[in-house]
């Protein structure tokens, strides 16, 4: 019960921080509020006993915050003034309400907090991983055993995506710089 209340408090904190990030006037405050959301996610991971995710989340969040601050500092946003377009706003509100209703309906079918689905289904592969991971992979950290042994393809794909994106960013940025030098 205590965990649920802590996570609810964290959720409210994250929602408030996200609203501030979306509504504030200064770009720097917006970026910092975004960092607060990330730290909230990291603490929430700790509460549901996922330290691996918490470590990755907090380190990536700090680094991304540095990236964002570096790229937004000294820049101002231009605020667009204009009339509110009612049909679009109405459509957006309707869409949000629909998604919310569907979410409430779908979340009802989930098992209660703290009792994962795998405890109900004996043949679930997750149970197999938990039982045999230490014996088969030799890694006490089951997460490492799963992502680098059972699910190695996923990690390879993830590494490939990272490689390709860095390559693309590097090619684009460097090409512009070189062309400028030749002038």
């Amino acid at each position, binding site marked *: 019960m205590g965990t649920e209340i802590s996570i609810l408090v964290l959720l409210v904190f994250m929602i408030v921080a996200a609203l501030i990030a979306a509504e504030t006037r200064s770009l720097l405050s917006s970026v910092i509020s975004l960092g607060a959301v990330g730290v909230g996610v990291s603490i929430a991971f700790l509460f549901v006993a996922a330290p691996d995710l918490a470590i990755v989340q907090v380190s990536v969040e700090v680094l991304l915050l540095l990236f964002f601050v*570096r790229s937004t500092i000294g820049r101002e946003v231009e605020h667009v003034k204009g009339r509110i377009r009612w049909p679009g706003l109405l459509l957006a509100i309707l869409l949000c309400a629909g998604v919310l209703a569907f979410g409430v309906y779908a979340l009802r079918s989930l098992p209660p907090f703290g009792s994962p689905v795998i405890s109900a289904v004996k043949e679930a592969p997750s149970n197999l991983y938990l039982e045999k991971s230490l014996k088969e992979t030799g890694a*006490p950290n089951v997460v490492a055993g799963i992502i*680098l042994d059972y699910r190695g393809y996923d990690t390879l794909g993830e*590494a490939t995506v*990272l490689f390709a994106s860095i390559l693309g*960013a590097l090619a684009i940025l460097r090409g512009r*710089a070189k062309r400028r030098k030749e002038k």
Partner: protein
Amino acid sequence: MKGMTVIVRTIARWVKVFIFLYGCLITITGHLTPGGGFAGGVIIAASFILITLAYGKELALRQLPLRAAAGLDSVGALIFLVVALFGIGFGGIFFANWIQRRFPGGSFHLLSSGAIPVYNIAICLKVGASLFITFVIMSVLRIVVQKDGSFRMVQDEEEE
């Protein structure tokens, strides 16, 4: 970038070592404790980015040149792929943990669980180097919006 004040520089000089070592620790013991290659790589990249911010990019690029970082990035990806490909030869299938089958090692030891620490180190090299490259590229170049709305990329020194 010229760097920051003496206070920041002095603290950064002491702290960067600990951040770097913590990243190494999280990477190397990724199969025993929470953490792993991705988190360790990000933390190691953060230690180099700290140097970049505190001392300016010249010192950081002297410690880890862009060409070396790009090499480390590729070497990490290659190690990952080659160890996984060896799984076909020694274990029968792609991504088979062949080191674990040949040399089991004791559980809960640093040298155990075969290929998983190797994968962790490879991912750490890849992630750390590529994030450092991205940050340097982003801090060297800067997008400037001109009056007619088109974009232009300039280097920081040109502007100042």
